């Protein structure tokens, strides 16, 4: 079998690039749907708002956790 010429190799590489682009586009579409679902679940409009909400919730949960531990200590079930 004849070895592929440089040009044929270039054509193959470009085909692979096209395939990769198609794959990426499919993945982006899927991610878009998932992100949209997440934003709906979080009841926010943008990704920035979602990130902000996550940060706020993290702080709030840490605070509540501290309160629960403090209360557990008060009632004597945690030393």
């Amino acid at each position, binding site marked *: 079998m004849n070895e592929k010429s440089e*040009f044929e190799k*270039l*054509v193959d590489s*470009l085909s692979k*690039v096209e395939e*990769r*682009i198609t794959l*990426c*586009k499919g*993945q*982006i579409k899927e*991610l*878009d749907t*998932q*992100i949209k679902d*997440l934003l709906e679940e*979080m009841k926010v409009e943008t*990704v920035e708002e*979602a*990130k902000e909400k*996550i940060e706020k*919730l*993290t702080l709030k*949960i840490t605070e*509540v*956790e501290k309160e*629960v531990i403090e*209360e*557990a200590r008060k*009632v*004597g*079930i*945690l*030393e």
Partner: protein
Amino acid sequence: MKIGVSGYQSIKQAVINIDDGEIVGITGDNAVGKSAIGRAIKAFICNTAGKDFINVDLKKVRVLVQSDRGLYRWDRSDSGATYTKNDTTLSKVNRAPLEDVFPGSGFLVEKEGSDIWVPSVISEGEQIFPFNVTPSIAFKIFSKFISSPKIGVISKEVRATIKEDKATLEKTRIRLNVAEQEYSSLIRRQLELPSREILVNLKERIVNVKMAKLKLERWTESIKKVDSKNSLEKEITEFSSPEIERLRDGVAAVVTKKLELKEIKALFQKMDFIGMSKKTLEKEVEEERSFLEKYSEKIKKIKRYKELLQRAVVLWERNKVEGKLNELGREKELLLERRKQFKFCPYCNQELL
């Protein structure tokens, strides 16, 4: 359920009976082996070993669990551990199948070298307390939280017995009394504990925090998909750079030119074929011409002969007709002569005109 331990640290052989829904507390003096039983069970569950894991004299450890689900055996020696269920060795198993051996069970195991007990294994669906507690506090919590009357009972009876050792057996009896005293003391102290409502409320809050944390973890994980999307978009942008676009156009142009070239080659081939056909035809025409030239004189002669022959035929026909006419003329004259001899017809006797 029966749990048997042999050859583990100070325990030569010990058997504990636990009825369904029962929590068994093992209490006693220091260094009598109560923690060793807990560790042996933990080793059975997790296949773990401490530095003084195997008794120097006994060398082999065996933990047996007999329940209505079958007989499970765990053997551990210097060379490793094996699990057996009803005399069948479980292959590729490096710890006891918990849900099979201890369905719906949990253990409080003493933390190594301290007076702290932690729930080591709790089956799915059970509440796990994420903090360390002393034995008495642990019992208090279980009494408060486990609402089913079956589970809520704390056995005041120590059922661990160490066989073949009368002195230890005597100690066990003493420990039984100690356990009863501890239990009574516990019940007394229990009255001073916070109310069930407060604990239930605390439990609810813990559960809520856990749920919120899980949700937050899920969200945090999902929001990372934005980064994945950006990375993919960046990749596409890189693929769509002007250099690659130029390369793509160039390749398309080369492919088009190659196709054109192929078509032109095909046309040339066709032209060659036509040229060859033309030459063949010219040759044939030349041959025909020379043939005609060669035979044209003969053809002319043949034509002339043909014309002469036609003329000869006509003349011959004409002579023939003229001869016939002459003959008929003579015959007519003869008949006319003969007629003159007759006035009447010899056949019908009618007068001739």
